[in-house]
């Protein structure tokens, strides 16, 4: 009996400790999402108003309008590409960081994190300066007689380059967090057993770092899908993505129900990627 009392008390304590975060989440996350959901079933009135009648109109437009479906596809594919490129660029850096030690490591970590201290807007304009037709890269290449036949900015190329760089710190930190299981002795053991470094990498290092890779990819994919400042600036208004469209509908066109509908769609994409992530984690184990 006493034991049961103990248990009840412990459960009570757990609930008491969890209550604040649950309340906050309900207030600032769950309520707005439900609100969005209900908005997506309302009619848009001119001048930013929201009707009171229930309607399927927003959803049927979304499904029927090729523009939105293409934006969805473009968003997802572009984000996948960016995630992949970010992973490719970040993995060697993270691995090197994981293996370095002491002050050198601290210094490198500060270098990795420092971009996060400046706003993404500033860094995006930095990329405009670098990628523009009269910018560093094109100019530099022309100096040595190479003329690129395509533009590097105000199109998809610019968005991909910019977002890849902007997301790298997140990827590196996520990878580092996931490298916990990577014991250098394991790699050494593989070498003494006759594995060449490349074999040791594929058979031992990569599988052991897979959880970190999954985490980093999830994080970067979600961030890439939901970013709108960088695609807007580096896309020059010519790259239509879900996030930029939501921004336009909500802020420019003042069509809140349409923005809400698209937002729910993005949430569904996130939900799917989360499922994929947990599936992957289970597969690694």
């Amino acid at each position, binding site marked *: 009996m006493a034991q049961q009392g103990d248990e009840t008390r412990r459960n009570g304590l757990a609930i008491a400790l969890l209550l604040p975060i649950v309340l906050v989440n309900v207030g600032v996350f769950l309520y707005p999402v439900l609100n969005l959901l209900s908005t997506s079933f309302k009619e848009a009135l001119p001048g930013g108003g929201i009707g009171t009648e229930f309607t399927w109109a927003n959803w049927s437009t979304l499904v029927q309008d090729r523009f939105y479906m293409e934006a969805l596809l473009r968003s997802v594919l572009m984000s996948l590409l960016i995630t992949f490129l970010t992973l490719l660029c970040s993995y060697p850096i993270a691995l090197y960081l994981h293996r370095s030690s002491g002050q050198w490591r601290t210094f490198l970590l500060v270098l990795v994190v420092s971009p996060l201290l400046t706003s993404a807007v500033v860094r995006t304009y930095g990329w405009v300066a670098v990628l523009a037709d009269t910018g560093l890269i094109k100019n530099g290449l022309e100096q040595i007689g190479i003329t690129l036949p395509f533009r590097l900015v105000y199109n998809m190329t610019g968005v991909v380059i910019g977002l890849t760089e902007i997301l790298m710190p997140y990827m590196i930190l996520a990878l580092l967090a996931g490298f916990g299981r990577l014991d250098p002795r*394991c790699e050494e*053991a*593989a*070498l003494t*057993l006759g*594995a060449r470094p490349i074999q040791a990498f594929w058979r031992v290092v990569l599988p052991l770092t897979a959880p970190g890779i999954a985490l980093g990819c999830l994080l970067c994919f979600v961030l890439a899908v939901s970013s709108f400042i960088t695609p807007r600036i580096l896309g020059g208004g010519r790259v239509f993505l879900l996030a930029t469209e939501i921004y336009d509908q909500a802020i420019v066109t003042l069509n809140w129900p349409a923005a809400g509908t698209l937002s729910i769609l993005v949430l569904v994409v996130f939900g799917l990627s989360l499922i994929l992530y947990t599936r992957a984690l289970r597969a690694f184990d």
Partner: protein
Amino acid sequence: MAPTRHPAKPLNMTLAEADMRHGTGQEEPAAGGFLSLQGLGKRYQGFTAVHHLYLDVPRGELVALLGPSGCGKTTTLRMIAGLTPVSGGRVLVGGRDMTSEPPYRRDMGLVFQSYALFPHMTVERNVAFGLEMRRIGRAEVAERVKEAVAMVRLQGLEKRRPRELSGGQQQRVALARALVIQPSILLFDEPLSNLDAKLRDEMRTEIRDIQQRLGITAVFVTHDQAEALAMCDKVAVMNAGRLEQLGTPTELYERPANPFVASFVGRINRLPAMAMGTKAKVGERELRLTQPMEGNIEVMVRPHRIQLEPAGSAATESTNRVQGEIRRTTYVGDLIQYVVHVDGLNWSVEQPTSASATLSPIGAKVDLSWRVEDTLAFKSAG
């Protein structure tokens, strides 16, 4: 291609096959061992972990590396395996300079002190890894993995992951993983430290058996002196990064090269004395030495080489004797351990039970005598 100097052979190949495979040693260079460390050294910033180490291990021999914690045993093994770059010196295998070869081209197996099992692979996959790297056919891999798993008594656990095993079981996986590839050189870093006495005995026999049958050259790091003396051809004693002595167990025990080896290998009693030629003075008493020495020395005698006799027994030409007083007696079955107070020092003396049917009482004055040949003497430090 992974190194495949040796054709794949099941563990139970015959002695004749093993002989054919490794030859009888005629093709070896006259001087030096199959594995030869020549002035091997390792410096970390401001700290020398290994000093100019010279060590020759003849083909097919098992050499134990014995020494206190932190003396550089692991560092030495890692340099042999090519995992730690050397700061100086060379590693030769069969006369070939391996110093700058990467680990995967050395054909050596290393059992890590910390096991270093692959956490994401099952026991089976761990053991199979080295064979797969050697491009051995599936059927044969399965066969040899099965044998190796049976050898370390892990049948039934093939599908488990390392984290689902006890420490001793993990250690045995590490052992199987290194043994199954039958490399030309095997390096063991305290491979039995986590096993119970019975299993440890079995594994010693297995390791020794495989090593001899296949003529593998091996270095075996251990803290356990009994293990080193019992299962190895030679024992190398290291201290603070230096090789103190290399010799057969008997040499090490009977003719230690210096006080460190004398006191590290087996137990020993010490007594400061003043040497003049083949005589040494301890107080008023005189001891005979086997070799002439001068000045301050330390006389050492092993506990079980001493005879206890009633005080005042007649001295003979061939024995040394000192007087003492019994302080403590401990009966441990097959022998009796005495603590005897000699010139302000506590000596330990061991007597077989049969020889002294009666326990000498505490406080009794006794003579301790031992043969002159059993007297070890070293110059005192400083």
